[in-house]
């Protein structure tokens, strides 16, 4: 069943030597793919670093700024609405990730223990929500009836546990050898201590991936903020949506002074919204290659 491991970086002996045409075609295709992904970022970074005059002169974009300047970034961090939005995003992301991880780990652990009281019906109850999500209007009315409108809790509590993350984590916990649990039980270790001293240390990689997944989804969220929150409490992505995608003036919501050169400024906001993802991405990538997720996805 186990395939013979292909030697690193070498063509197996039986495989034909590829024709130069094939190599060229492959290289060309891959270059196009890479360019399609990277060029948009390059344009945005360049534009955000260019001077206002250069952007206006070039008609809205710059591929290589002649005189790079950080003016756009300076005005972002100057304490206006965007600075506030950055803090809102950071706050919601950290509190949300912590809350989600706590609730998810606790539930996943309890559900991963064999023959736990009420475990099976509860799991069915949870999987059923996968088939029939509650819907946008009832979810909104619920948040409204609970008095959570314009409360940061509305951005976290209604999406506290992601069923996919829960199921992946539960599967991972189930993979921990049962003997460890039995030995701990014999030594009189409580279920709570087992979670802390056995399960969590053994699941670092899985916990890291799920944690990063939550963090990325909180950082990227904007829709709930747009329906639940007042404009002064918007996170960065909703600001980006309003001023960049919809092209509204930054004064439109009475939130700050008119920005002189929107284009460089907008692109700088776009970069600031992207950078955290780029920072955590290598860590995510590291765990994918470890196969933590591919295994989980397959099952």
């Amino acid at each position: 069943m186990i395939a013979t491991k292909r030697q690193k970086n070498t063509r197996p002996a039986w495989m034909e030597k590829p024709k130069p045409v094939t190599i060229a075609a492959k290289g060309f295709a891959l270059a196009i793919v890479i360019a399609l992904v990277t060029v948009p970022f390059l344009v945005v970074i360049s534009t955000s670093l260019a001077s206002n005059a250069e952007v206006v002169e070039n008609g809205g974009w710059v591929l290589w700024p002649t005189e790079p300047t950080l003016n756009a970034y300076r005005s972002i961090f100057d304490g206006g609405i965007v600075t506030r939005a950055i803090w809102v995003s950071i706050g919601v992301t950290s509190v949300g990730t912590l809350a989600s991880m706590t609730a998810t780990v606790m539930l996943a652990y309890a559900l991963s223990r064999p023959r736990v009281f009420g475990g099976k019906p509860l799991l069915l109850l949870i999987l059923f929500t996968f088939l029939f999500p509650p819907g946008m209007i009832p979810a909104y009315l619920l948040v409204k009836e609970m008095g959570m409108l314009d409360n940061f809790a509305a951005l976290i509590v209604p999406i506290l546990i992601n069923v996919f993350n829960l199921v992946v984590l539960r599967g991972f916990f189930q993979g921990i050898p049962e003997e460890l649990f039995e030995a701990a039980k014999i030594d009189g270790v409580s279920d709570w201590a087992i979670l802390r001293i056995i399960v969590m240390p053994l699941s670092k990689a899985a916990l890291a991936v799920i944690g990063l997944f939550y963090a990325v989804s909180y950082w990227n969220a904007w829709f709930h903020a747009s329906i639940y929150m007042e404009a002064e409490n918007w996170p960065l992505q909703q600001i980006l949506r309003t001023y960049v995608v919809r092209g509204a003036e930054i004064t439109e919501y009475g939130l700050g002074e008119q920005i002189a050169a929107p284009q460089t400024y907008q692109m700088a906001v776009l970069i600031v919204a992207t950078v955290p993802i780029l920072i955590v991405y290598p860590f995510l990538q590291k765990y994918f290659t470890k196969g933590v997720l591919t295994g989980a996805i397959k099952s």
Partner: protein
Amino acid sequence: MSVISDRSSPTAVDDAQNRPTVTDKSDIHPTTLVDRQKRDRRKRFRRDRVLLFLMAPGVVYFLVFHYGALFGNVIAFKEYIPFVGFWDSPWVGFDNFTRMFADAGFWSAVINTLLIATLQLVFFFPVPLALALLLHSLTSTMLRRTIQSVVYLPHFLSWVIVVALFQQVLGATGLLNGMLDGAGLSTVHIIGNPDMFKPLVVLQVIWKDAGWGTIIFLAALMNVNEQLYEAAAIDGASPWRRFWHITLPAIRPIIILLVIMRLGEILSIGFEQILLQRQSVGPEAAEVIDTFVYFQGLINGDFGYGAAAGLFKGIIGGVLVYAANKVAHRFGEQGVYK
């Protein structure tokens, strides 16, 4: 919590363990057996009290924000009046639904949803497969990893960022038109053009998720036994023949599974993606069921009507996903859930 579990039937494991007792001591009065089961349940409850405590926040969350909200769908049978609230709004029976079925805007949203989903199935679906085959054919592991890193990245960006990037590249004053203009060619009108909206949406999905979609194909390709290729090559099979007789059969189940699952989710297409861009092209081109719910319910404040459309989509969508899973099982595959 205990209430839920007590009401539910004993689990399969319980059955298996209790059954010998039933056959062995069939002379015992049935109430004794019930008592015994009760006692067993009470014992397990006491044994698992720490675990039950750990479950509590999650259980409350699912009951309130999933089942509570699911119950909130009764608003579809009411006319929501904001100042009397959810409970005291008057019942209107199926009025919201009859109104919806007579609404041309609703049907246009249904058609747009199905059209975009079909376009995605036809044009998005093959891209990750082709990309996976291309990546898999690379002999250098380092090169493959590097390219994988680059193509997975867009998956983790928010739709706001993706749409903004597309505006910057394909917009009226974007990179593409700037270059066309510079080369003396006529510019193209893509962003904000209702006729181009559906292809644009598919293009964005390809840009964002084609790389991510390769993961599952690559996993399947990695699982193919290398010796099969070697044996075939020694027997004189050309690369094309090897692809046709080894690679394709190996990944066929996963292709079938993914197509079936996608068909099951045909009513759900990127809500955020389309909501972000609906304003610039108008509802005729861009209204889908989810945005219909949003605009009727949340923006116009017609909550009952919006909820009716949402409930309609929810029920049909849920049944379709369930059916898709059943079909997938028929093909001997696992499906999304067991």
